[in-house]
């Protein structure tokens, strides 16, 4: 890469931009009390800075050992998260949140591999591991594993690109859900529930969940409601709408009183109509924070936030 220095610099700039963007998401979530996946955003910040340091050694702020520990922690964290979600029933094939954790598990493992596999000769100094991307005498351990990781990451990139149109569709759907439910005059400060006119109202109340449309998406029913769009667990959902997912939008199991869980209880008439953007597609997953909302009647937070 020393013969084409503009390329690593360009890539380093892209990595820094990604890190800044992810840091901005964390800051916005804290300032505007929005839910976000802190574990993913933190991972993206760390990964962006680390990769910028790989491309341009002058940008590396920390010793190699620190990065290795960081990505080892990330690997363990997402491995645990994936295991928890798989045990909870969100299968990889279902497009549930487990596949998203798996993707980040692969990312962290790949970063850990790159740090451990790239070892410069001793004459380059102890901190030359991160500086060995310039190809000056670097030795790569287990290069076949690099090929495996490369194929996995390329496949992940292509898979995400395929789902872009679905995310855009669901984003419009979330907007329709939220806005369509406010045709009438509502008191200031009130929250706007989503109508369950898409056919899931009474059945949803009995079963305790609202089912998103099937493969047809429920299009053409002409009702604003969960049945008219596809709703996904909340990966990036609060910034770009929600992802498309054919699976049921489920409320977690709740007691009769909503106090313990932070959701409307079974007897609460708001439960069937409650599908605000933060709640739709919710699955509790590690690293997620729930939003608190001011109760329209009580004027205070009625649902606890959980980390």
């Amino acid at each position: 890469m020393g013969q084409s220095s503009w390329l690593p610099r360009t890539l380093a700039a892209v990595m820094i931009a990604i890190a800044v963007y992810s840091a901005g998401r964390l800051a916005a979530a804290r300032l505007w009390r929005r839910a976000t996946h802190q574990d993913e955003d933190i991972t993206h910040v760390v990964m962006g800075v680390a990769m910028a340091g790989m491309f341009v050694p002058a940008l590396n702020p920390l010793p190699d050992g620190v990065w290795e520990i960081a990505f080892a922690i990330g690997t363990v964290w997402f491995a645990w998260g994936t295991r928890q979600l798989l045990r909870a029933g969100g299968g990889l094939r279902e497009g549930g949140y487990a596949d998203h954790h798996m993707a980040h598990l692969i990312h962290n493992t790949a970063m850990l591999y790159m740090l451990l596999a790239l070892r410069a000769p001793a004459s380059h100094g102890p901190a030359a591991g991160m500086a060995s991307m310039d190809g000056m005498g670097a030795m790569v351990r287990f290069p076949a594993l690099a090929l495996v990781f490369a194929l996995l990451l390329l496949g992940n990139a292509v898979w995400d690109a395929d789902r872009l149109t679905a995310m855009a569709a669901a984003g419009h759907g979330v907007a329709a859900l939220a806005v369509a439910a406010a045709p009438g005059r509502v008191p200031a400060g009130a929250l706007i529930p989503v109508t369950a006119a898409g056919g899931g109202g009474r059945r949803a109340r009995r079963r305790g969940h609202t089912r998103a449309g099937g493969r047809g998406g429920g299009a053409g029913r002409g009702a604003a409601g969960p049945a008219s769009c596809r709703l996904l667990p909340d990966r990036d959902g609060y910034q770009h709408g929600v992802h498309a997912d054919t699976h049921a939008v489920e409320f977690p199991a709740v007691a009769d009183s909503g106090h313990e869980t932070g959701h409307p209880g079974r007897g609460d008439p708001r439960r069937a109509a409650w599908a605000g953007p933060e709640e739709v597609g919710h699955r509790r997953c590690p690293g997620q924070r729930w939003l608190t909302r001011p109760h329209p009647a009580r004027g205070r937070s009625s649902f606890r936030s959980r980390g």
Partner: protein
Amino acid sequence: MGAAVSGFRSAARARAAPAAVGWRAGSFADWRPLAVSEGTVAARAAWRQSVAGEAAARWQPPDRRRLLQLALAAVWLLDAVLQYQSYMFTQMFGWMLAGTAGGNPAVIADPITWNAHIVEHHSVVTNAVFAAIQLALALGIAWRPTVQAALAASIAWSLGVWWFGEGLGGVLSGTADPVSGAPGAVIIYALLAVLLWPVSDGKPQASFVAGRPLGVWPARAAWLVLWGSLAWIAVQAANRTAQGLHDMISAMAAGEPGWLAALDRGTAGLLAHRGLPASIALAVVLAVIAAGICLPVPGARCAIAFAVIVSLAIWVAGQNFGGVLTGSATDPNSGLLLALLAAAYWPARTPAPAPAAAAPAPAEPGGGQRPPGS
């Protein structure tokens, strides 16, 4: 969309109500409470509802064809990543291209030499353009709204690279070998783009993905031509020498990791002084694969599975994953693509006939039930 526009207009004509408070979701900047008029709220809701409904109705989870398209996109993306290697931004890339002109007729070789000269003297710009094009093709295939345009562009690009970058795969120069990548990996990209072309689901469908755009028999003909040509190339004079395969495989060990170099030396040792019988055996295997597509479904599946195994064996032992571990590879070579192509011919399971149905039609050899009109 017309309904959405009319809905928007009708709602916009509603008399504005006193201000209401609502949430707007969907974009990062809009997550705040804002005061909007009731008419505006309703108008926006009607428009977004229409758009959401239409978009949601269009999007489907990927089926087999779409999964194969995504695999093709991943291979193009790997191509782009390999093109961004530092080696490609040097004059050596131009020299590599110039080397493909040897043995070809002048009408083929002269443009190759001309192109290689340009690349050699403007290596950074030209390689950046090549890599960007391949990256755009990959992302274009992966993103659904542009899949057709990207597949069409990939066909044109593949044909150009097959000429200017691979010298038509060495087919006319007599140096082609199935183990080394004949008839040129990039032409298989073009073939895959044709066979995975998105078609309307309303048309009668073949039981395998590759048969849907062109029909069952044209797709089988393409299979026959491809694998039959590989069998023919395997027994050409240049490939029948006693040490031909041995020398080719042993030369690949340079620059490879230790375990792969050991595999190369072991394979070369097996082929030492056995070039002729090895070539004949390879030709027989390839001919069986070619003909097997015309067998009934069980036989066709065996032939396709055999094709996948042979392709992957060639990719590993004969091509060393396309040489991607040496730092100077431009693509993963043909083995991986042949396996992907074989996957496109895998016949789907046919559903069981209904009990009240008439006498069942005879099973279509290699393709399940006969589609109407074919």
